[in-house]
């Protein structure tokens, strides 16, 4: 790769090679044009940048540290494993990085209400937090299945003043929550803004969320160089559902060809359609929710029901930039199962005293799998969120692994 990847991608219409774009019904064209124009104009202004910098430091608690997972690494007798601690970001996940920025943009645009979907509830909690900070209204759409599974996050959103809209159709998870949020936004695009939860959706969202998550990669690169003898890690790994945390950390390293980037998808219960959410591994070209990417569909072209133990990864599409990075071979994508994820969840908790989100545990599982084969090398994982939200679900269904 000849450098400056980020400046060259996407093109001005939001295309990453053959993926991306804006497949919008006409009712949404003007609202999205408004967001796009505002993003280009406002996000680079000194006012916006300075305020975001202040928020990152004093409200979010950034920079988040990198932790050398010595016990885990020693137990594997292979590569050294490092964790970028996004679980220590305020609200417990990387999502707040783009939510604070999206809400700040909304305020600059004079919007009064933030609308979004959420899967595991991490994006919902982060957006509700941002809304409270800026004094904006907040409406979060969430599938009924996820509402039940992620109860603590539902409580948090309500305490933060957000309205949680239960989504009762289809599979009642993240995919339907996106449909519902879009529909709500369509009703009132003048006073509201859709603050999407990942690097998905029509242009400019994949770029906007990526740019707002860039802080993770920038910090991680500098911190890694400072704490180790080498400038760069050999491997960087992150879980990929929509793909926001992965795009965040990848950006610090994407122009450095010697760094191998790993995207880790959820293999769920198996390889059959409906049992996993491994979109890059098993998907085909198509459109969903206003963008072109790889999509898991049935033979009639209907986006398929998907499964992952991690609600935040439970989505039949994937960010268009990931589809592109897969196509050009810059990022290696692989998948780990629910069981491997649980093993990693327990292992990190016991060995390092860090309970990871089930989403992030996918990346840990991949590192555990590959570490023995890479002695002397380093693996930097984006530990994108903490597992507090998952503890009841795991303990009730799988026990304490004693």
């Amino acid at each position, binding site marked *: 790769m000849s450098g400056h990847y980020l400046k060259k991608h996407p093109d001005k219409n939001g295309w990453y090679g053959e993926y991306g774009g804006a497949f919008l019904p006409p*009712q949404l064209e003007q609202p999205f044009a408004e967001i796009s124009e505002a993003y280009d104009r406002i996000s680079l202004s000194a006012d916006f940048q300075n305020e975001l910098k202040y928020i990152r430091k004093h409200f979010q608690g950034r920079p988040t540290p990198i932790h050398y997972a010595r016990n885990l690494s020693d137990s594997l007798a292979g590569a050294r494993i490092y964790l970028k601690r996004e679980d220590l970001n305020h609200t417990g996940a990387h999502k707040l990085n783009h939510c604070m920025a999206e809400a700040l943009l909304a305020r600059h645009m004079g919007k009064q209400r933030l609308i979004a979907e959420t899967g595991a509830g991490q994006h919902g909690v982060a957006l509700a937090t941002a809304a409270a900070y800026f004094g904006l209204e907040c409406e979060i759409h969430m599938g009924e299945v996820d509402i039940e599974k992620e109860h603590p996050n539902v409580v948090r959103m309500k305490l933060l003043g957000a309205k949680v809209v239960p989504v009762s159709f289809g599979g009642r998870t993240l995919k339907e929550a996106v449909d519902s949020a879009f*529909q709500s936004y369509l009703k009132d*695009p003048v006073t509201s803004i859709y603050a999407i939860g990942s690097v998905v959706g029509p242009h400019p969202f994949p770029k906007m969320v990526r740019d707002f998550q860039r802080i993770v990669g920038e910090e991680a690169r500098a911190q890694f160089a400072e704490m180790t003898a080498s400038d760069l890690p050999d491997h960087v790994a992150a879980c990929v559902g929509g793909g926001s945390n992965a795009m965040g950390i990848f950006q610090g390293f994407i122009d450095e060809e010697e760094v191998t980037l790993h995207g880790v998808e959820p293999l769920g219960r198996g390889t059959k359609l409906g049992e996993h959410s491994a979109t890059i591994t098993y998907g085909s070209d198509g459109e969903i929710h206003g963008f072109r990417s790889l999509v898991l569909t049935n033979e*009639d*072209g209907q986006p398929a029901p998907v499964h992952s133990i991690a609600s935040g990864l439970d989505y039949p599409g994937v960010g268009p930039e990931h589809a592109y990075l897969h196509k050009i071979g810059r990022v290696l994508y692989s998948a780990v199962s629910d069981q491997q994820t649980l093993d990693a969840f327990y292992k990190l908790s016991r060995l390092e005293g860090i309970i990871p989100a089930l989403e992030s545990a996918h990346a840990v599982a991949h590192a555990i799998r590959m570490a023995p084969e890479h002695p002397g090398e380093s693996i930097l994982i984006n530990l994108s969120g903490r597992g507090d939200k998952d503890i009841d679900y795991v303990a009730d269904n799988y026990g304490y692994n004693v």
Partner: protein
Amino acid sequence: MSRIAGRFAALKAEGRTALIPFITAGDPNPEVTVELMHSLVQAGADLIELGVPFSDPMADGPVIQRASERALKHHVGLHHVLEMVQTFRAVDPDTPVVLMGYLNPIEVMGYQAFAEQAAAAGVDGILVVDIPPEEGHGLLQTLQASTLDQIYLLAPTSTSERIKRICEVAGGFVYYVSVKGVTGASHLDLTAVENKLSQIRVHTDLPVGVGFGIKDAATAAAVGRIADAVVVGSALVSRVEALAERPHEIAAALSELLTDMRKAMDEA
């Protein structure tokens, strides 16, 4: 002249406005769809808009979305919808049929295969909700080379530049979404609609239909005075939903509403 153009020309000669009902194919089950289409024609439909079920219809409200869900429970895909049109066409050679749906099922079937099979089945026009002309990817060219008319939506927020661009590629008629929001929303502002229709007619000689928010005969008549076609969807689909467990009563219920609308429009 296409079947759609022919139908609008005939209506214009009579000084009448087209009435276009929308139902979702396969709702509440695939067996009733063709029968419903015939009864809609008997009740005064000039064209029929048939929804292709899609699991993630981002521009539709809950009413149409649930219609898709009911149809998908019976696994009604694009192939089935084309078979339904073919069965309808065998009996009714005259009434134009427009399919309305989302891009992905068409892409999975293949653009060329879709264009050929749709035309062969007797489909006259296609409205793909989530494909603006910029993101055509060959579909627009494929359709342009076929006999199918490409119907496009325009919204209250569509700019003049946008209207011009859409009208350049549109065929059959232009479909103006009269209220902000999703299908089934309310609050129709007639003056605003009339102003926008004038703006659209600057750019095209195609008939302009108005839909979204037309719930009853009075509204249909009022819109019929300013538009070339009145599209009614959610009001019909709500009736289908209410009678989903008694499907043999649906045809009469839809006919009742459509007959009232037709009568009010003709008297207006």
